[in-house]
């Protein structure tokens, strides 16, 4: 998603993404459940934005199985 997009643009893209991915997963939801799912996905998108700008060095690997 582009950096300079407005909240309205972002929400529209998220609506389209949620609908497309639900279809891809084969999940058929009633309207109330679909709307609540989109609300929860918007929250996840906001969480994603919190870490999106963190300057993580390229050499840092994902912590898959996490033996300390």
């Amino acid at each position, binding site marked *: 998603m582009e950096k300079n997009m407005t909240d309205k643009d972002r929400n529209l893209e998220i609506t389209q*993404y*949620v609908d497309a*991915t*639900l279809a891809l*997963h*084969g*999940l058929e*939801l009633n309207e109330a*459940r679909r709307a*609540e*799912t*989109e*609300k*929860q*996905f918007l*929250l*996840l998108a906001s*969480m*994603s934005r*919190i*870490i*999106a700008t*963190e300057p*993580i*060095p390229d050499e*840092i*690997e*994902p*912590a*898959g*199985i*996490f*033996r*300390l």
Partner: protein
Amino acid sequence: MSNFPFTATECIAAFNSGEVSASEIATASLERIRHANPALNAFIEITGERTLSEARLLDAARKRGASMLPLAAVPYAVKNLFDVEGITTLAGARLYAHNPPARRDGKLLERLHGAGGLLAGTLNMDAYAYGFTTENTHYGSTHNPRDLSRSAGGSSGGTGAAVAAGLVPIGIGSDTNGSIRVPSSLCGVFGLKPTYGRLPRTGSLPFVASLDHLGPLATTVADLALAYDVMQGSDPHDPACAQRPVEATVADLSRGIEGLRIARLAGYFDDNACEDARWASHVAAKVLQAADEVEIPGAAQARAAAYLITASESGALYLDALRERIEEFEPHSVERLIAGSLVPAAWYQRAQRYRRWYLERVLALFEDYDLLIAPATPVTAPLLGQQHIRIGDRELPTRPNMGLLTQPISFIGLPVAVAPLWTGSGLPMGVQLIAPPWREDICLRAAGALEKSGLSGSRISSGAR
């Protein structure tokens, strides 16, 4: 029954001295459970026949002069995501209600049984372990023994309530984002979330494999350490379980805070705490002689990353069932699971990379300190059904935000003990005692020091004893 041994330490001593039999201890515990559980809804299944059968075996062994076991004649109970032979493993979910019974005990139950523990039953929880309030649509809400109108916390809410009500001295729970620490704080008992990879999860239902931990809740620090010690040991069947030797903690408890460099966590951990929570953190820091206040860099981002990983892994885990049996899901969390299944891989990967990076920065703090102190929950126990909590002038939804202070710690697998303090309102508030990886001994020593000072204790009512 008023003078009957109650803590695990008392049960072991009374049994070993011949003062009481294991059968008498088991019977007393089962009576307490049957009397109190209708009001609490902590136990989903009471395994009375098994409790008494295990007790009779211990009594017979003592008659034969068999050597004493480390947890002999101690009643305990487990969150119902652990496999118990002959019982269907529910994880608080109707989805699993028609599954066949487990064919054998989970690994930790095997170890507790081998140490002489008496299994009293299985305990209520948020469905799938996805929640912090144990408000379960299909199995009912668990009520907090300190105030029945309030939440016991979650997702190990039944475990917290059972220990706080004095029904069993030890309960076993799980903690992905705070599910041992939140109930410990809200119910006013001691809890331990060990280092990620310390205790094997074999024979327990997963929720978020890369964040799931198991651990004990208990009446006293000595009981907590006893339970933790007998559950230690590697297990090749859990791929995340470290190949470490048993590192026993009980013998070191008396060392208290001797030689420890301690700091209180400020910044994020004050900003997301109500007045009672900040008070608990400050007073614990004073008693433990914390020299400094420090901030964990990136704690808010860590919480966000933990939230994403949790949603994504749990959503993926339940995707097939969501397609096929969506109406059987818990209404409180079904849309969160669906939304989690839609998370793009790039978001998930970034969260996992942030996890590694954040760990490296937090480990740098432990070059200067051995122990960090923070509140365990943003607020004391909310009312059951309460939709929002207040932190300063902010009003936040209750369910996702009770883990605000626990998520940035479990995200990187650090060991944490929770010690309960008591606020002016009469409700408990736990403090997190956080140590470097594999140093559960430090967490427990600090909890023991708070307990010894009289500031912290589980205040089990005398009526339960």
